[in-house]
């Protein structure tokens, strides 16, 4: 199940209704999730959870599940 803070960030940055967001929410399926919003999203996640993603990892964070897993791997979820 998606973390509430992550859901809020996804909703705010991608301008989505929070209730429409699930683990399966992904860049390829959300029109507003373009390359600039992706960077804004990663910055927002880093700020909220006080983490710093590796440059090679940032392009892979293209779904709610992928972001969740990356945060879980850092022990913040």
């Amino acid at each position: 199940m998606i973390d509430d803070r992550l859901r809020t960030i996804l909703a705010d940055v991608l301008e989505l209704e929070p209730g429409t967001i699930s683990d399966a929410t992904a860049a390829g399926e959300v029109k507003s999730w373009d390359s600039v919003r992706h960077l804004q999203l990663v910055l927002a996640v880093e700020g909220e959870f006080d983490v710093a993603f590796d440059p090679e990892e940032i392009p892979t964070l293209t779904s709610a599940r992928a972001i969740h897993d990356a945060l879980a791997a850092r022990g913040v979820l």
Partner: protein
Amino acid sequence: MLRRLDHTGFAVKDLEAAIALFRDVLAADVGPIFEDPLQRVRLCFASYDGGRVELIAPLGDDSPVTRVLAQGGGGTYHLCYETDDLDAEVARLRKQRFLPTGPAQPAVAFGGRRVIFLFHQVAKLIELVESTAK
């Protein structure tokens, strides 16, 4: 630390047309055209006494400049700064909420010196280029 502003990045769809505009109308000294397969761009510099503009066109549909053109129609989209220590500068900017858009890579237009792009919510897209080949 950042040494100086190296150039302004200017995205164009048609590089040859942009070269003609900057050379013939905007009085720039235009240098050679480079193709950079890593950055997926074709580019050249339009130079003036006070600075230079990097004219950048996409090299294929998977070029990052293709997305820039699709989103904003082109024009000025990044500022490039020269730095003596690229890795230290990335680490410093990382703490100021600048986000790398990918790893540092050697750039053909800079003789193989590494460049990296970083995004910031306010500063938007900046590029760093190291001052000497390492």
